[in-house]
Structures are given as structure tokens and as C-alpha cells.
């Protein structure tokens, strides 16, 4: 009984939805338990952003995080997966309206990267986040869908193997 309830997501989880709204558009929604003022702060301050953008379960390490969250500002995130070469993700903020909206480009994929818009909407002390990833073409989104299947999981298991070897 206990084991079952542990393995099943509680009703407060699974609040995140992902939907392909059109040929070149993904929409992700989530309600975060806090006022828009604080949710925006957690998004716009690099030292806070770095605490949540790379969840541990993904198996990536955030090496550095620079973000100037203003209209016209730029960002650069560097990740590492195990001992692999670091990967950089970068772009610029097309529009930043404090506590309402952030729009940014994803330039590491050159012309194939999406423009991402996140909007913040406060409802009863909570914040509804709606993220739209708009790709330049259907082909670009299809390619992303395919590459999304690749993950850092294999390297993570390698790391676990190493740990177990040391432990043994």
C-alpha cells in the first residue's frame, strides 16, 4: 500500500503539460506556487536561475550561467555531461517585460533554433507559466523532436558505474 502510493505521482505533481500546438510550435504550461513577483525574480536573476534550470535528474552539470535579462541583453549557459566536452547554449532577449513576459532566441542551433516566449500570469497567489517554443519551420521542430530522444542518461549510468567500482 505504502509502496504503491510512493510510486504514483501525487495530485500536486503532473501539473506540467506539453503540447504540439501546430507544425512549428510547442506549448508548455505549469502553475508555480508563488506570486509572479518571486517567480520572475527566480527567472531573471542568474544566481537563482542556475538553481533550477538544470534539474539533477537530467544528469547535466551547469558549468556557468551568465544572463542579462533585459530587452537586448544576452545569455550564455554552459553545461557538461559527465566528462564530455562542455556545451554552450546562448542567445539574446528580444523582449523583457518585468513580471509579465520574457522572449529569447536560441542561437546555438543557428537558424534552426526556436524563439521562446514565457508569460507570467498571477492567479490567487500562484503563477501560471505559459511557454511557447516557436520554431522557424516544421522541419526544425521535427529535428528537435528527434534529437530530444538523445539524453545524458547513458553517461550518468557510466558515472554511477564508476562510483560503484570505487565503492566496491
Amino acid at each position: 500500500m505504502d509502496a504503491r502510493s510512493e510510486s504514483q505521482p501525487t495530485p500536486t505533481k503532473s501539473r506540467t503539460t506539453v503540447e504540439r500546438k501546430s507544425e512549428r510550435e510547442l506549448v508548455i504550461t505549469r502553475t508555480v506556487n508563488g506570486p509572479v513577483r518571486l517567480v520572475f525574480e527566480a527567472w531573471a536573476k542568474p544566481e537563482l536561475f542556475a538553481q533550477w534550470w538544470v534539474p539533477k535528474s537530467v544528469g547535466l552539470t551547469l558549468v556557468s550561467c551568465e544572463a542579462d535579462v533585459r530587452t537586448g541583453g544576452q545569455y550564455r549557459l554552459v553545461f557538461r555531461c559527465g566528462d564530455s566536452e562542455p556545451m554552450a547554449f546562448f542567445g539574446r532577449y528580444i523582449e523583457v517585460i518585468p513580471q509579465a513576459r520574457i522572449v529569447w532566441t536560441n542561437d546555438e542551433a543557428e537558424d534552426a533554433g526556436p524563439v521562446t516566449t514565457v508569460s507570467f500570469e498571477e492567479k490567487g497567489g500562484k503563477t501560471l507559466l505559459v511557454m511557447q517554443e516557436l520554431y522557424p519551420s516544421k522541419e526544425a521542430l521535427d529535428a528537435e523532436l528527434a534529437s530530444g530522444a538523445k539524453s545524458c542518461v547513458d553517461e550518468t549510468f557510466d558515472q554511477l558505474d564508476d562510483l560503484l567500482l570505487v565503492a566496491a
Partner: protein
Amino acid sequence: MVKCSTAGLDASFTALSDATRRGVLEQLGRSDASITDLADKFQMTLAGMMKHVGILEQAGLVTTEKVGRVRTCKLGTRRLDEETAWLEQHRQLWESRFDELDKVVDELKRKEKNNGRKK
């Protein structure tokens, strides 16, 4: 493998974008049916239904088999499973990301409350 599934996703999303084709999938979920049955059910010509079934077949969502003069259609779920899996994987990434965001926001709320008390 990865490249293969791109074409599959592409064809499936096209196939699912039409209300009649979604209806056909629903129908085939209940029982297999011939093209004639489906054409009757959805009140369209045989040629029209063949076109829809052809698109579903290309996407791997439906398989057909011709026995004598009758072409029977049944559900083929492979591609649909792949897409569902991809979207679920993507959802899980965002779910864990936003779970972490929730924690950061909780921490900010706590700090704000403490600061409020000090004042």
C-alpha cells in the same frame, strides 16, 4: 533510429490533424472495419475514405489487409507510441525543472517572510 522517427512523427502529426481521420482511429479502436464500412459510417465516398486510410497507413497508425475484394483496416499503434513517449519525456524534463523552480520560489517566500518579521 533517431532520424527514422523524425519522418514518423511528421507523418503522424499530419495524419492526426484531420477530424475524420481521428474518428476513423477511434472507430478502429473499437473494432476492425472494411473501407466500405468506414465510408458508410463517415458518409463519404469509397475513394475519399481510401485517401484518409492511406494517410493513416503511411503514418503507421493503421494497417490494412486485402482479402478477396475486401480491404480490412485495423489499428497500428507503433508510431503513436513513439510520439507519446517523446512528449512524455519532454514533459518530464519540464516537470522536474519546474519542480526545482517551485523550491527556489518557496525559499524566496520564506526569506521574504523572515525579513518581514525583522522589520
